[in-house]
């Protein structure tokens, strides 16, 4: 908080600042509490469990870490997945999340707080979302502080608005304590209101972080699942915090030019690299911003300090993470940063030379350098192109390529396209996830352009890039959410600026205004860094009294405003009619209220399902489908510890974590061939499938079947991906064989290949016994082949609602039969012609 830094002691404003800082801390704390508690719906509605798929792997890794220590974790070779290849966990996992949770667990245990690893894992995500909201607050503050847009009068009025908003929040019953506390304090003291705008934003951010909940839509169904609710123990839980914090430190460095923050920035970047593969977003976005600054003539030593140490230290640190290693300098994702690194040095040199040379000499030097530089550049580019072109994927990994060319993955890599997270989002999902922010973001962008600073240009770039990326891949909606929050915060603040300025203008005219030099100097710290704000700004404090809506309390709201140039002219231009302002304010408040309601609803209903336990509401009450855990428990109790279980890869992590059985493939889809082998087995007829599974030492096959209860994300619905992935490696599997006239169907019109493949048989074996017709509630049709026997598999377990079915491979036949040809029945009875054995 800029205003906090040097309050002159003994003045009323210092008093206000002191209260302000206490209040700001309180509000931040409450925002943290809110961010934490809104994510506890899943724990309250279900139980404290780990959710979904990937979190189970992370949980298992954390357990290993807490049991065996960091060196064993680093060198962990896991022989229970990807049988028989195994997986070097230590070298293929982003360790940030695990190490974070492991450290928390270790600290708590050292303090004699005996929490289980699972509890720590469940609550890591909510805790870090609180951190993330604080980081967002810091980032917005940095951006805002450099923008010279806060008018004292506007802020004065904004408090009222904020209170108004908060009263509605009160009705929404979430933040009662905050509001009352804040409202009371507002009434009782006149506060250094320069904070209030920021508070307002904090609140927004507190709520808006709910939109971090944004996560992917499942491929077939709107099964919304969140990445940061309690139990969603995934990389993104800590990575979003790391991402925003890195951006904050970058902006901080950009604003201060401090090498200290630059170093911190590199360390934050390191934490991000540890946490999530999305770190490439940072290492591409920041260079882009640097390039933008250079191109727009905003080069400054601060920019150099913000960027150069990040590249050098950041790359060195990133290379220390085993999973990244030499990729930090070898893959194309990182090339942009190095290129910009070179450019910024060239520019720095140019500025330096410009400083020591006369303009004429400089011109000569420029022509000389440019001509030599062009030659060198050409050579470098040629070498780079040759290097990149020599690699098959042109140096880009598949996931990154699918970012640049959205059609790339579905064309070439079915395994990437098959993941629902990698699908482009639908429009409703935008509305679902960011709601009214979608409308506020454009306004925020406009606000960022008046005036444009280094920091605000960064946020603009951030939102543009994240909108693009989220349009490519649902999963990256996660990156968009904080950007949208920041933008909307700025937009709302600007809107309140305008409206409250108008109100104030109408109410008080200019009678109460007076110069407040102290406030001006104290609030302009940030503006000074920026240099764009005029030194001749006049602060203005307005105090006014006005009865609140309830008519009980009076408030006295001072505010100060470092205004932009030609303040008075601008102010006049921005004045709106009194009534219009009031109406607009109320509308904005209502907008906020609806947003809060939506977010709470989304957090409670859409994003809190753990997906391993399903519920459904029907006329006769709540139904709970706990089939997954039932089946994994069956596996762990009834099978040998070294038995191998084959299933589609979605269930790999859960099987290893919950049933502790070896799996063939899992959600870490690193080996396409292996997955294709399983896909081929699932799409082959029984005998061929048996042979494939037997060659992999598989004992049990697990399929997920939703036809009985209407659970749509079952294996039959995923089956076409198995065919595609299998066919990608083993060409005898052809997708067309499974489709009737291009249509995927399992009823009597289905192709014989489809009706004879293993997946169909394992899913629908004995299904007709349930209702006599074999009516599949997901596909809403009667199945094509109803009565059949399995020749190579034995059904050993079917869960309560038939969601999970486990089959055992029959052992190889003890004997091989001769010709199965039915012998001709002899009519002539040879019995009478019994031979005398003595002949």
């Amino acid at each position, binding site marked *: 908080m800029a205003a906090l830094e040097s309050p002159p002691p003994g003045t009323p404003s210092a008093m206000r600042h002191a209260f302000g800082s206490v209040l700001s801390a309180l509000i931040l704390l409450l925002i943290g509490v809110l961010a934490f508690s809104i994510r506890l719906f899943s724990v309250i509605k279900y139980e404290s469990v780990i959710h979904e798929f990937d979190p189970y792997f992370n949980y298992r890794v954390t357990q290993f870490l807490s049991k065996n220590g960091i060196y064993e974790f680093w*060198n962990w070779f896991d022989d229970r997945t990807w049988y028989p290849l195994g997986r070097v966990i230590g070298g293929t996992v982003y360790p940030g999340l695990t190490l974070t949770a492991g450290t928390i667990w270790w600290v708590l245990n050292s303090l004699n707080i005996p929490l289980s690893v699972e509890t720590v894992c469940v609550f890591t995500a909510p805790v870090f979302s609180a951190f993330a909201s604080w980081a967002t607050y810091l980032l917005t503050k940095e951006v805002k502080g450099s923008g010279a847009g806060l008018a004292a009068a506007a802020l004065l009025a904004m408090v009222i608005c904020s209170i108004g908003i908060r009263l509605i929040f009160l009705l929404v019953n979430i933040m009662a304590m905050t509001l009352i506390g804040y409202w009371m304090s507002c009434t009782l003291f006149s506060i250094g209101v320069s904070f209030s705008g920021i508070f307002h934003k904090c609140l927004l951010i507190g709520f808006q972080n709910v939109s971090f909940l944004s996560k992917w839509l499942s491929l077939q169904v709107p099964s919304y699942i969140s990445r940061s609710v309690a139990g969603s123990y995934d990389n993104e839980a800590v990575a979003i915090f790391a991402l925003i914090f890195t951006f904050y430190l970058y902006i901080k460095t950009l604003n201060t030019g401090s090498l200290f923050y630059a170093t911190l920035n590199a360390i934050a970047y390191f934490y991000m690299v540890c946490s999530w593969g999305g770190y490439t977003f940072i290492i591409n976005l920041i260079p882009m911003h640097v390039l933008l600054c250079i191109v727009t003539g905003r080069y400054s030593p601060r920019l150099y300090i913000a960027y150069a140490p990040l590249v050098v230290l950041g790359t060195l640190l990133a290379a220390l993470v085993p999973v990244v290693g030499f990729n930090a300098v070898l893959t194309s994702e990182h090339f942009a940063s190095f290129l910009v690194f070179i450019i910024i040095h060239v520019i720095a040199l140019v500025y330096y030379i410009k400083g020591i040379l006369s303009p004429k000499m400089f011109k000569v030097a420029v022509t000389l350098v440019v001509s030599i530089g062009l030659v060198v550049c050409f050579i470098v580019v040629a070498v780079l192109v040759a290097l990149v072109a020599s690699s098959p994927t042109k140096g880009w990994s598949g996931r990154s390529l699918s970012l640049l060319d959205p059609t790339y993955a579905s064309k070439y890599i079915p395994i990437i396209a098959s993941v629902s997270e990698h699908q482009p989002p639908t429009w409703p999902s935008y509305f679902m996830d960011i709601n009214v922010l979608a409308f506020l973001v454009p306004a925020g962008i406009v606000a960022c352009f008046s005036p444009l600073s280094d920091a605000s240009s960064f946020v603009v770039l951030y939102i543009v890039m994240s909108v693009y990326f989220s349009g490519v891949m649902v999963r990256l909606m996660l990156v968009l959410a904080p950007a949208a929050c920041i933008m909307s915060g700025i937009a709302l603040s600007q809107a309140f600026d305008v409206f409250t300025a108008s109100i104030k203008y109408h109410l008080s005219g200019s009678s109460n205004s007076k110069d407040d030099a102290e406030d001006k100097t104290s609030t302009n710290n940030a503006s000074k860094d920026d240099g764009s704000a005029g030194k001749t700004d006049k602060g203005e404090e307005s105090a006014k009294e006005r009865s609140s809506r309830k008519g009980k309390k009076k408030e006295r709201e001072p505010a100060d405003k470092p205004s932009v140039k030609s303040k008075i002219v601008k102010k006049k231009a921005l004045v709106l009619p009194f009534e219009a302002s009031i109406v607009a304010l109320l509308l904005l408040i209502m907008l906020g209220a609806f947003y809060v309601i939506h977010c709470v609803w989304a957090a409670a209903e859409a994003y809190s399902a753990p997906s391993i336990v399903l519920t459904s509401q029907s006329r006769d009450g709540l139904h709970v489908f706990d089939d997954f855990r039932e089946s994994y428990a069956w596996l762990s109790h009834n099978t040998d510890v070294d038995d191998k279980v084959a299933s589609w890869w979605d269930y790999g992590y859960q099987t290893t974590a919950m049933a502790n059985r070896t799996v063939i493939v899992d959600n870490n889809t690193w080996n396409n061939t292996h997955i294709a082998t399983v896909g081929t087995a699932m799409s082959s007829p029984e005998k061929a499938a048996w042979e494939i599974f037997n060659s*992999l030492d598989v004992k049990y096959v697990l399929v997920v079947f939703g036809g009985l209860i209407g659970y749509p994300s079952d294996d039959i619905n995923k089956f076409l991906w198995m065919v595609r992935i299998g066919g990608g490696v083993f060409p005898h599997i052809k997708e067309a064989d499974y489709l009737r006239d291009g249509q995927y169907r399992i009823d009597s019109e289905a192709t014989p290949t489809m009706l004879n493949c293993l997946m169909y048989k394992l899913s629908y074996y004995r299904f007709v016994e349930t209702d006599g017709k074999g009516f599949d509630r997901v596909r809403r049709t009667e199945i094509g082949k109803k009565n059949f026997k399995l020749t190579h598999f034995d059904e050993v377990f079917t869960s309560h609602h038939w969601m999970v079915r486990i089959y055992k491979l029959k052992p190889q036949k*003890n*004997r091989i039969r001769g010709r199965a040809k039915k012998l*001709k029945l002899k009519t002539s009875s040879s*019995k009478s012609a019994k031979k005398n*054995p*003595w002949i």
Partner: protein
Amino acid sequence: MMNISRSVSLISLFLLPLLSFSFSVDNPTDRRVLVLLDDLSLKSSHSIFFNTLKSRGFDLDFKLAEDSKLALQRYGQYLYDGLIIFAPSTERFGGSLDSKSIADFVDSGRDLILSADTSASDLIRGISTECGVDFDEDSSAMVIDHTSFSVSDVDGDHTLIAAEDLVKSDVILGKTKIEAPVLFRGVAHSLNPTNNLVLKVLSASPSAYSANPSSKLLSAPQLTGSAISLVSVMQARNNARVVISGSLQLFSDRLFRSGVQKAGSPNKYEKSGNEQFVTELSKWVFHERGHLKAGNLVHHRVGETDEPAIYRIKDDLEFSVEIFEWSGKSWEPYVANDVQVQFYMMSPYVLKTLSTDKKGLFHTSFKVPDVYGVFQFKVEYEKLGYTTLSLSKQIPVRPYRHNEYERFIPTAYPYYGACFTTMAGFFVFSFVYLYHK
């Protein structure tokens, strides 16, 4: 219900010692053999064969095939360890016996001698089909050979074959060579060449064919030449052994005693090879020979004795396994130079022949390949006549730990030098730049 189950368990408790004496992993030779006959006169007409069995300690239980009290099991326990079916014409067994129960009997690891004959019943054909042996579909067909028939064949239709084409296996037919031809009169059968469980022990000569000797040959016979098998054996995957013969007379006293002279051959033998052939074959089928057991699969790093939970790539390890052979009375060390171990992960990365110390211990040592993953030590030993050995033990192989790599690579010393001189140079430069005025 409770009482019944209790009494069953009591009986089985009582029977258990008896059973364990008779047939077990430790003592694989059969003891109690059920002989099913379609005519009790066979008991005397084939007495030599039965007596050799008795003299070797087998407990023979003769029953008529149509005996209504026939049962292989009682209270879920098998009453017999072996079964001899000399009832080629039986259409239905008495009691609870049928083709499926006999197949189950084999699948439980027990042994069977089945003899068909001309005009064998569908039941017998069905059982043999279960075992992978297909008799000639024409029920009146016999094996006819106009070149290698026995000269004593008075009928002149050349159906008494003097077969010499024996499988070359000391394990199945004993070490002593069978000099005299084996006399055979009966029906031909064929084997599916892709079936690797069945084996021709006695095959017909290239000039043989299968047809009805009393009728005129109208079309080319379906089974001809050495594709015709006269006697076959089957060793199931669980090592149950089955002998299927196309001739019941093969086992008879008459052919045992008869002299033999193959047509066109000057050698005349006083006694046919039948007795030796059948006796040796019965030794094999009742597991008196060629039964191996393996165990005690041990591996450890060179220089250590304990078995590790995981190997590292490029570790040196020692592997050993013990293999014994059943001699009929005791377990003797198995001696062979062709036992191999695989270090297997989807395909064998290492394939080593084990050397033996002639006391049953087979051992070798090798280096773990430079590939990590979940490997298996696999010993898969399938040798003609011997029981199949299939052992495997899973062992993961991990890559190097972070501190097991070389810390300093000699070839990289120039780079280390460059790095440190740059650092020193930068320090000096900074010092001079900052403080030299």
